[in-house]
């Protein structure tokens, strides 16, 4: 009897449990370690933080090898043997780039920027709490529009016609779309930048660098100046450039900020300095993808990096080396030549001295190495940094360029000019670099080479005619290894033009060769080599995987519906 009672009770209890099936809550498992889209954007701090990501990891694919290969190798500031990127400096191998990993790295990176900017632009107005001040919401939206514009600006300069995407979800079910024409993309960029100019906060860059980190209305104006310049809309370019200059928001190191030099611009400690218009904000030492990868690729060796990387995958060409005069203070902070001593690198052993020949050699046999964006060991940078992850920011634009834009916009396509506004602007940069001021800006193009020596293999003496363009050369010296040269070459022959005769001739005269140590002689022996692109190669091919997913990419573009 007792057994029967116990059995009944136990069985009954169990059946009861079985019968009452689990509550609905039991099956609700939203992420425990991630915020869901619907729960975010509720406070001012959340809205401010929502744009942080747009300054970093999304750009990663472009900032490293990929961007350097496209801009510096193809442009002619760098050369390489490195088998993974050698095709970028060799136009006869250009066709292989459509399937190249580095090519898709840039493409993907810009579309990452666009996808995340779009997500913010589309989610924020819907999800944001009414407690957040509209100005903060608008500033975040302004930043997102700015980022999207800058990403398209890079895409259009590298690939030409590309599809404009403003909301990923529109294309989920059908991504077979055409590209949009270059002119429409520029129009779209201007529209986004004008939005940013209107909505981003106005700022004055001060000595508290951390508060300079974000882009402002002035950053949008500066970027607008550059875009207008590419479009050869000189009036608007000039007006935006002057708006920036007159605002006093940004300051030139060594000119407006005394005691600082060009070299100081690239120290980790000076991230977000007064000259910075838009910098990518890396988390030094953080996991791969969050830190700055440039040093790893550019540094001459692992003694400099202290983290076993430092591959010197790109060496400065002799063509670039010859472009700097001995008085140019930018040279040593841009490229290393034999004997150069850098007290800021490898400080624990008293600084790094670049050996060059006759030591084992130098980066890519150019007897030189890249310095810009090379910042040294973690110990040299306040303990921060790791393999492929340094904490120095990457410039997308700095104030010095605004003066070069101003000079070019004032000249408005003239061959020569002695307009004081233009001279003032370019000389500001030249003087800072230690060069003598110009009295006339000469953009004549090819002129007889005064140094021509028949039979010489030195770049500066090799050609009977050489290209003379004070603005182009100044930009190149100022911005070398800041990913600009290729874009400048692409616009020399005009805005959105199919043929590039001038640029082709410039490139075909660049010595991209190597040097071999000749121990018996004080001079290194140069083995020049020259490359010539075709006009079609001024646009990079779409990544093959993208074309195979959407064959319409290679068809004629269709107008964008604004």
């Amino acid at each position, binding site marked *: 009897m007792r057994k029967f009672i116990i059995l009944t009770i136990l069985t009954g209890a169990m059946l009861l449990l079985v019968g009452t099936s689990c509550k609905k809550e039991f099956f609700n498992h939203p992420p425990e370690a991630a915020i869901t*889209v619907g729960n975010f954007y509720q406070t001012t701090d959340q809205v401010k933080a929502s744009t942080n990501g747009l300054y970093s990891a999304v750009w990663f694919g472009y900032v490293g090898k990929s961007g350097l290969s496209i801009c510096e190798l193809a442009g002619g500031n760098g050369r390489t043997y490195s088998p993974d990127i050698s095709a970028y400096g060799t136009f006869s191998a250009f066709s292989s780039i459509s399937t190249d990993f580095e090519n898709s790295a840039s493409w993907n990176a810009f579309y990452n920027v666009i996808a995340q900017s779009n997500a913010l632009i589309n989610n924020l107005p819907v999800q944001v709490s009414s407690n957040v001040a509209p100005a903060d919401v608008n500033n975040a939206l302004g930043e997102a529009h700015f980022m999207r514009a800058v990403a398209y600006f890079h895409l259009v300069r590298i690939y030409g016609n590309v599809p404009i995407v403003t909301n990923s979800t529109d294309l989920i079910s059908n991504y077979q779309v055409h590209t949009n024409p270059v002119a429409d993309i520029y129009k779209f960029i201007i529209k986004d930048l004008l939005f940013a100019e209107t909505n981003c906060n106005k700022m004055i860059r001060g000595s508290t660098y951390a508060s300079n980190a974000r882009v402002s209305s002035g950053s949008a104006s500066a970027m607008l100046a550059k875009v207008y310049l590419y479009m050869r809309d000189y009036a608007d370019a000039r007006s935006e450039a002057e708006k920036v200059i007159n605002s006093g928001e940004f300051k030139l190191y060594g000119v407006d900020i005394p005691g600082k030099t060009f070299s100081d611009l690239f120290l980790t400690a000076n991230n977000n300095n007064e000259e910075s218009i838009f910098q990518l904000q890396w988390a030094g030492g953080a996991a791969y993808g969050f830190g700055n990868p440039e040093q790893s690729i550019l540094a001459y060796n692992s003694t400099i990096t202290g983290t076993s990387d430092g591959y010197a995958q790109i060496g400065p060409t002799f063509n670039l080396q010859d472009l700097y005069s001995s008085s140019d203070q930018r040279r040593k902070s841009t490229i290393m030549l034999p004997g150069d001593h850098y007290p800021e690198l490898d400080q624990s052993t008293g600084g790094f001295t670049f050996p060059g020949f006759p030591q084992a050699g130098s980066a890519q046999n150019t007897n030189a190495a890249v310095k810009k964006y090379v910042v040294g060991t973690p110990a040299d940078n306040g303990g921060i940094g790791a393999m492929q992850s340094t904490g120095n920011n990457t410039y997308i634009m700095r104030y010095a360029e605004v003066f070069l834009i101003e000079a070019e916009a004032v000249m408005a396509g003239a061959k020569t000019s002695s307009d004081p506004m233009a001279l003032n602007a370019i000389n500001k940069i030249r003087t800072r670099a230690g060069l003598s001021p110009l009295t006339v800006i000469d953009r004549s193009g090819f002129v007889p080479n005064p140094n021509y020596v028949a039979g010489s293999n030195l770049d500066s003496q090799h050609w009977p005619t050489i290209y003379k363009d004070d603005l182009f050369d100044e930009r190149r010296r100022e911005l070398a290894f800041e990913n600009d040269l290729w874009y400048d070459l692409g616009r020399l022959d005009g805005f959105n033009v199919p043929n590039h005769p001038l640029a082709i001739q410039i490139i075909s005269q660049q010595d991209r060769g190597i040097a071999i140590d000749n121990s018996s002689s004080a001079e290194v022996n140069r083995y020049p080599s020259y490359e010539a692109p075709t006009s079609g190669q001024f646009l990079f091919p779409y990544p093959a995987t993208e074309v195979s997913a959407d064959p319409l990419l290679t068809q004629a573009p269709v107008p964008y519906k604004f």
Partner: protein
Amino acid sequence: MKPFFTILVFLGYLFFSSLYIFAQGIQEQEIKGDVSDEKGSPLPGVTVKGKNSAIAVITNGNGEFFIKIPLTVKTLILSSIGMQSQEILVGKKGVIHCVLKNSTTTLNDIVVIGYGSQKKGDVNGAISSVSAKEIENIPQVSIDQLLQGKASGVTITQNSGAPGSQTSVHIRGITSLSLSNEPLYVIDGIPVSGDANNQATSGQSVAALNGNNYPGESGVSPLSLLNPSDIESIQILKDASASAIYGSQASNGVVMITTKHGKVGSPQISYDGYLGTQEQGKFLPLMTLPQYANLENALADNEGLPRRVEFANPSLLGPGTDWQKAIFKSATEQNHQISISGGKLGTDFYISGGYLKQDGTIIGNNFQRYSFRSNINSQVKDWLKFGTTLSGSRSYQNASISNNYGIVYLALLAPPDEPVYNADGSFAGPPANQENDVNKFNPVASALSITNLLERSNLSGSAYAELKIFKDLTLRSEVNGDFNFGKQTVFNPTYTYGANTNSTNKLQEYQPSSNYWAWKEYFSYKHIFAKKHDLQATLGHEVNSTHWNGTTESIQNFLSNDLQTLNLGTAKTAIVNEYKDASSLESYFARSIYTYANKYSLTATIRSDRSSKFAYGHQIGYFPAFGLSWRVSEEGFMKNAKEWASNVKLRLGYGQVGNQNVPNYLYGAALNSINTGLGTGFYVDKVQNPGLTWETAIQSNLGIDFTILKDRVEGSFDVYDKTSKNFLFQTPLPAFVVGGSAEYSPYGSINPPYINGGKISNRGFEFNITSHNIQSKSFSWNTTIIFSHYKNKVLSLASGVPFINGNLSVGFLNFTLTKTQAGGPVGEFFGYKSLGTFKTTDQLASAPIQFGQSVQNSGNGTWLGDIQYEDTNHDGVVDAKDQVPIGDPNPKFTYAITNTFAFKGIDLSIFLNGSYGAKIDNVLNYQIAGLGQLYANQLASVSSFWSPTNSSSNIPAPRNGNNPNLYPSDRFIESGSYLRVQNVTLGYTFPSNLIHTIRATQLKIYVSGQNLWVFTPYKGLDPEIGANNQGVFLSGIDIGRYPSPRIITAGIKVQF
């Protein structure tokens, strides 16, 4: 709250019930007896049990027994493995002589079928069984590796030969495109996923950190924590009619593992141990220093560099460093296990402890495991039984760096002109300016100086009670849990190896943990109506929940390389990360098995699962199945054939199962946190799709089981069709829609939405046949053949998805190696067809232009010595459109043949395992035979590359960098067929009269050779490649896998 309540009720229930154990008064009688076989030899180890009683003993070495039973017990049951059971009426005589007959068939073996068990002969579904005997004496670390070649329809490939590494187990082909294809393992009722990448939970391996900065194969076997010696039997539920009881967890099949239980009778103490030595069986012939120098000169010429002075005359150089010899070593292995088992008065127990240590054949690798298990069952009352299982294990696994860019890879490419050590004994490194990605790291230094230790602990257990409500109806209530804790430590020291320096040491730690609990209750009913209608039914409810959590920390700048703890690093370099989530599942299931007259049988199963992995409204899935069988041999018309065909049974099954290995919150969009210079940043992780639901596999099976030719031959043959559909599929969108992984960094892109779509079919057949060739008094010879064939075909992908690429980065190259598209198999190799090298200028002039390159002997033109590719689409040019499928990584069939011989006490088993028809993409050859990079050694076989003086060679001339000669093509596709002498074991069992003096009941010694020889046309290290991190799109791709070693062991097995 609910689990606590459950446990409380359960414990109370156990407590009350146990009060009654001791309250019995017994009137007993004593019975003596002996048991022998048909030849009169005494049979030790026979279980003698009172019918309807818990009391039992086993016979001693002389086959004798002594048992005390209550007077109420009238019958004894005698049973022993491999013998037919016998019931004996107890008379008044008190002494019993008994003869047991050999049972040659396995039809009476009990097989576990999930929430119940059945006699093997009665099973209606497709189930393969493997017994402990078949896998004993094989020195493998984990059970997934042991199953290789033991069951038909199961394709097992060891993805790496590293100790403790993972294995791919595919039951009947590839079922899922996006989720894991590993089966569900159910160990004594506790489910364990075979997915080394933990897709359904943390999404990463428990060894997620890499010793170097390169991604590689990192998974470790989830099953390496289970000691194979504890296993009693394994059942593999292959078709849906068998596995549907596991519903949404069963689409990849279910492997049921039952551990050993004590047998009623006098306790047994067993020791099982072996010592072994392992060595690398095959080395790749690499260039010697003179050949290497010759290549370096050719590459220098190609790049316009001067030749290196020291290589001016290659023929004068010595052989150089043999890096393979430097990293491989012979290694020892040892395994010990002690178990005590027995049972008395209705209580049985099994307790074991084990220790295994396996050194790797690559320096710096080893694996150690301590394990413990206790299984206890007690029939406390005739209406109540309860039991517990508890197992714990701890393992230590030292690895150095992973496969891709791993030690083997680095050693193959390391230049022979560099020494391993400097004269002062320190590690050597590359001279300045002769560094590149691959020769930068001294492989020996990397293997020995990088710490990469994985410690894992596991505790799992269950407790159950079985309540007999009335004679035919029982209710079983069970709680179980599985708790895992891991810790991986990776330390990169400071060093200077030649020109390669690292002045920043770094420690990374990763602590993953997971816990699982489940509570299940089910009723079992069994009754025979009118002697002919046998009905079994099961009805149950189960609820389970899994929580997982992991933290990673890294810190840099230690003052010394010796002490490696987080507190000793520099605080401001610290980076921390954490993940945490949970999931839950609730299920109802029902099964009934109806058998008429032992002839016709029907099994019908249904399970409903409700999962937290999906949004409300899409959480519930139903998984029905049925199986029919017809035992033809029981029919009247077969009566005369009975002697020749004692059992012939036809089976037909159909059912649906699902796949539960889904990551959490796939249906919604979250914000991933990332590190930026501005502080934490947030990225939208994916495009949401709240309508996401189960992926299903529909399976049908037709099979026949047979025991024929006077029970000499038994086996089964099955054909099946398995169609899986509605994959949980991540739409592969072009990057312009949502962004994409860039420069190996996945951060920033918005993941495309997961959708349900696509369909793949696997059709195949499989059979296993065991033939008892000779069965005489002193000699026996048995042969077992296992054969499996399947054809995998993609029927459709999701709408808008024309194909899925399998991409891999190898060194500086990144390739699309496979393309999965409708009509072809999953992960089919894709590339160009090569036509040998260009040997004449005429050939150059007449061939279609390749990749838009001009015909010229400079830079990047096409020239003599380059590979000519076929213009497969005949459009006059060779370009990307000429890529075609160039090979299927799926084998045409796999097979295994086991021969066992027994002569008196000697037994010999020879186990061959083979695979035929799979293709391997020898991607390693892009690097070690690519002739594309300075300072990297190459295979000796390519030293005869094309040159003007060797113009008939089909090996292309050295070309720097990413050049068309290295494009994916059939040049790199090789046959992956192999026949492996997997295991040969020779054992001797001492006769019982000899060992009686040491009071042993059994003593066996054996020697065993594992992986003794491989017959294969494959030129790489090992043709058994498996899948890169178990991924289906990159299987059969050799990227420098850790080769399986040859192992010789000697073992002893003794029982008291």
